[in-house]
């Protein structure tokens, strides 16, 4: 991996809530075209990392994206820089239709024909969304909402997708479907930083992985290495 391939570099990241530090100097990087996963138990600090990268929480340390320091950029400018964040719990606007949710995600784009093309692409990936364009986001099932959340990230035309526990609350069948689509999106050129508690599947599709415990990265390696690591097997893969 050469420096020019690096898309995102996070170094010495510290995040505190009401004076209590939740992240204690986290460093990692994501190269162009990769799927990188951050795995860790509930409360380890995974979401805090994503929230810092996309400018939702203040932090100490550095976040650099394609050579640009993101520290003082407001969240909406970070989207413009090319990062889309699918938040934990999906963050669907329940009072907007499916179509409006998708359109809103393309807020900053002026290239109308490309937006229309991306919308078609989203509907090809998620045919159920096409059927439900006029329905309110709040009426969708959990799985459909997750698809809509990923669809929105694609509508922003970002190069890097931050996905926060896309498997949360979904049935095993739907989880596999979502992971298949994440791999497919990645093959088409999107870089993915995937946060998961479901380490099993995450390690299967990720090129590289980091393990987070109480605000610190304690292990890193390729997805395959970590999937074979006895400590990981015991702690995250159920033995």
């Amino acid at each position: 991996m050469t420096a020019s391939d690096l898309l995102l570099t996070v170094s010495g990241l510290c995040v505190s809530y009401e004076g209590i530090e939740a992240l204690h100097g986290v460093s990692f990087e994501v190269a162009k075209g990769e799927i990188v996963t951050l795995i860790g138990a509930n409360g380890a600090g995974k979401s805090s990392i994503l929230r810092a990268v996309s400018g939702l929480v203040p932090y100490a340390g550095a976040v650099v994206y394609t050579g640009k320091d993101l520290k003082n950029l407001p969240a909406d400018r970070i989207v413009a820089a090319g990062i889309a964040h699918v938040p934990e719990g999906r963050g669907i606007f329940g009072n907007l239709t499916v179509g409006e949710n998708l359109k809103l995600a393309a807020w900053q784009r002026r290239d109308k024909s490309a937006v229309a093309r991306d919308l078609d692409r989203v509907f090809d990936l998620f045919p159920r969304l096409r059927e439900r364009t006029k329905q309110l986001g709040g009426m969708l099932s959990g799985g459909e909402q997750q698809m809509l959340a990923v669809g929105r990230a694609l509508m922003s035309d970002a190069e890097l997708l931050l996905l926060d526990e896309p498997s949360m609350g979904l049935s095993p069948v739907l989880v596999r479907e979502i992971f298949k689509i994440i791999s497919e999106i990645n093959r088409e050129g999107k870089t993915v930083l995937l946060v998961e508690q479901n380490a099993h599947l995450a390690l299967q599709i990720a090129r590289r992985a980091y393990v987070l415990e109480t605000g610190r990265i304690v292990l890193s390696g390729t997805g395959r290495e970590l999937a074979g690591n006895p400590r990981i097997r015991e702690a995250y893969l159920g033995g």
Partner: protein
Amino acid sequence: MAYFFQQLLNALQLGSIYALIALGYTMVYGILTMINFAHGDLFMVGAFFCFLLAVYLKLSFVPTLLLSMLGVACLGVIIERLAYKPLRTAPRVSAIITALGVGLFLENFTLALSPYPKHIPPLLTNVTWTVGAVSISSLQVLVIVLSLGLMLILDFVVWRTKAGMAMRAISWDKTIVPLMGVSVNKIISLTFAIGTGLGGAAGVLYSLAYPVIDPYMGIMVGWKAFICAVVGGIGNVRGAMIGGFILGAVEILVAAFFPSTYRDFVAFTLLLGLLILRPYGILGRPQPQKV
């Protein structure tokens, strides 16, 4: 029958002014879950802008209306930036107290400049048509048509434009909106501009219809419009319009049958009764999400 139509026109005129003001309360609430208690006083400032522009600059009706709306909208945006924005994450009671303070400031600032009530000159020649036994004044028609026009435009903005979509998204969950690439601050400013601008328009129309204005005129009208917004379902734009027309109708109806001193008492009692039947207002729903 003629009497009924006469009263209906009066109710529509009063109701459309209440509705315009109620929209400002409801839009700000929808986006910030905050009651802008200075809004009634911004309505009053609109009336004084109308006075200044018409009397000192001798402007005609259309520029007076547009400039008053613009002036009040700018004032609304400045107030939000200076007074409310720093308190966005503070406990809600701080924002409420600040809004009441801003209202008192506007009242007393205006009082200092203009200690006596002002008379608004007629900006338009008023024609009265007589249809059967009903007399219709052109002023009345103008107030109603202009208000309805502004409400239609607003409804279009909220439901059919990208900015309106962003406003509705913020009212659902403003922590997610920045992730869509939308600047929440800009949309909040836009919302204040539109909401207070409509309040300014109401101030102008009100002072044409009831041409004596004073610095405290916004208090009672503001409270009433606030109640309209609550009755319609606070945060709901169409609800605010409905609430405004209901109060207009109730007031005119009560005044037709009871001594005029009973008007506000009966009107408020009826509206509170309505709230007991529908605690979230006519079009309001219990918030489905954490606030």
